[in-house]
């Protein structure tokens, strides 16, 4: 049996370094690793010395895709530290903004990264030739999610309207009603995209490895904005006990810290939320879960992309309900709670598109941050990806090397890791 040696290097020059390594001898896997460097370990140095009202604007730069999630996690940590209570309307608007981010991220991930894998093409570009209608529908849904973010948050990336205590401005009733209609009108397009994915879902590998799933959870709603920390292995913990869940540790082949809880590793993200909070999904989301044959607890990480798609329906349906609640008692004047700046520590958890995100701040009596910690979802998933690799690689080792490489890449892509997010400079050579 032939030896296999795979080294897939995706190296951006500053950070965002993720490599796949696989060595096999005589058909036996000797080494398989997901090696990563980078993580926002710089977070504390940026945060320390900042005033409480600056924190969200700085930390939202950690991630371009989860910019809203970082903003909300940051504000919630500050509000917890200073005992700031939001109005019911502000709580609803924050949830709507979170749903908008979830939508735009999931649409992008499924549409631009997963669909090309399912349809057997290398990227979204050949897809424009072969499936132009599908691409245009994905672009349309992405645009709608951006418009929803713009409307409620002021800006999709690095939002401007949210501050400790609430908002600096909120949309008018008319604007909210128009957005509501746009969401209703978009449902058929979501159905069309889901049909395309369903028709090609057979390309998702049938791989199962039992693991633990961790997500935010609540008894009264499918949680993404707020709740306790929950595990599919059982148990719920207040968010300020997050360190007893994440248990960060260091491995020699990665500069990103790994995490584990009840088992060797755990997974966070849409599949974790689905597995933990399935009962509270909206009707259409449950209907689509049924069509895909997805039921909790699903241990196939490739189904994370399907869970994302199902969450899109949940985001739309719950947003419609939240909008109705906002419109019922709309208050355009009292949009930010008064509060006193005071010393304290606050911890928050928000379930951003890639999974549970923690921010932990300590402020002095002047509202200056003296200590901060941030644990991002991707870092919590690295260990699980590695454990998946160890279980998955032996089952595909007899395949041609190119197929093994593609399947391992697909497995990593299913998690949509945030390994190279911070830097967006261009790197070019001149055409001569």
């Amino acid at each position, binding site marked *: 049996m032939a030896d296999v040696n795979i080294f897939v290097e995706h190296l951006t020059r500053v950070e965002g370094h993720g490599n796949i390594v696989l060595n096999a001898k005589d058909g036996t896997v000797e080494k398989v690793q997901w090696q990563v460097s980078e993580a926002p370990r710089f977070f504390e140095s940026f945060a320390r010395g900042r005033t409480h009202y600056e924190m969200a604007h700085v930390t939202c730069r950690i991630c*371009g895709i989860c910019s809203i999630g970082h903003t909300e996690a940051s504000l919630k940590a500050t509000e917890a530290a200073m005992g700031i209570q939001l109005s019911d309307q502000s709580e609803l608007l924050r949830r709507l903004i979170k749903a908008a981010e979830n939508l735009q991220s999931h649409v992008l991930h499924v549409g631009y990264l997963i669909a090309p894998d399912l349809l057997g093409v290398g*990227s979204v570009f050949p897809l424009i030739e072969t499936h132009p209608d599908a691409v245009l529908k994905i672009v349309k849904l992405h645009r709608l999610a951006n418009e929803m973010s713009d409307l409620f948050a002021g800006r999709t990336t*690095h939002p401007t309207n949210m501050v400790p205590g609430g908002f600096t401005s909120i949309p008018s009733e008319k604007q909210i009603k128009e957005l509501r209609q746009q969401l209703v009108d978009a449902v058929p397009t979501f159905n069309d995209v889901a049909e395309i994915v369903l028709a090609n879902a057979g390309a998702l590998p049938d791989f199962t490895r039992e693991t633990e799933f961790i997500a935010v959870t609540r008894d009264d709603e499918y949680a993404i904005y707020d709740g306790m920390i929950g595990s599919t292995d059982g148990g719920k913990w207040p968010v300020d006990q997050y360190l007893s869940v994440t248990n960060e540790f260091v491995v020699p082949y990665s500069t990103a810290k790994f995490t584990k809880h009840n088992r060797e590793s755990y997974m966070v993200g849409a599949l974790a939320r689905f597995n933990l909070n399935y009962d509270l999904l909206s009707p259409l989301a449950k209907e689509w879960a049924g069509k895909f044959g997805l039921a909790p607890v699903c241990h196939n990480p490739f189904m994370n992309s399907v869970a994302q798609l199902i969450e899109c329906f949940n985001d739309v349906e719950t947003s419609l309900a939240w909008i109705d609640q906002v419109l019922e008692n709309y208050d355009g004047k009292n949009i930010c709670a008064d509060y006193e700046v005071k010393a304290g520590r606050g911890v928050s958890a928000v379930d951003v598109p890639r999974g549970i995100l923690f921010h932990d701040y300590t402020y002095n009596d002047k509202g200056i941050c003296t200590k901060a910690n941030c644990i991002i979802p991707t870092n919590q998933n690295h260990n699980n990806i590695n454990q998946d690799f160890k279980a998955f690689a032996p089952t595909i080792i007899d395949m041609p090397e190119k197929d093994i490489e593609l399947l391992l890449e697909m497995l990593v892509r299913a998690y949509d890791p945030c390994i190279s*997010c911070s830097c967006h400079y*261009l790197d070019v050579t001149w055409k001569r």
Partner: protein
Amino acid sequence: MEGVLNLFPFSHFIMSRIAVIGIGNPLMSDDGAGVAVLDILRGIHMPEVDIIELGSGGLTLLHRMEGFDSVVLADAVDFGGEPGEVRIFSPDDVNSVKTVGYSLHDVDILKVIELARQIDQCPQRIMIAAIQPVKLEHSTEMSEPVRGNLEVLADRIRELVLEWAE
């Protein structure tokens, strides 16, 4: 109008002809140049121009460019130039050497432009206003050559916009 519309929801519904879009992350030293130059541009009189901060928005660029005839993308670009050197060029003048990996986070704006063209949602004119970065590390401080040349970058963008506005 400058400096106002980027705070306005649905800014792309307002059909200004020309936009300057700043790209980059101020937490990554010189990568933040594309955003920092917007602060200078907001203080310069440039009629009929929307100034938009994309930050690390990646694929959101697709929708931020929509509705404009002409767009300048201000960004840190490693084009092999001198530290802080400023160049204005067309996306068609260059090849990207970036490897797009496993995630949505590492987005190449040249790819976004290509996508916008393929789905026929691209401005007629796009130019990249580039500044050669020196350091790309976790810091809010830009290098001296880049910080020192931001005014030059702003001037070149202004010249280009005035030329387009004629």
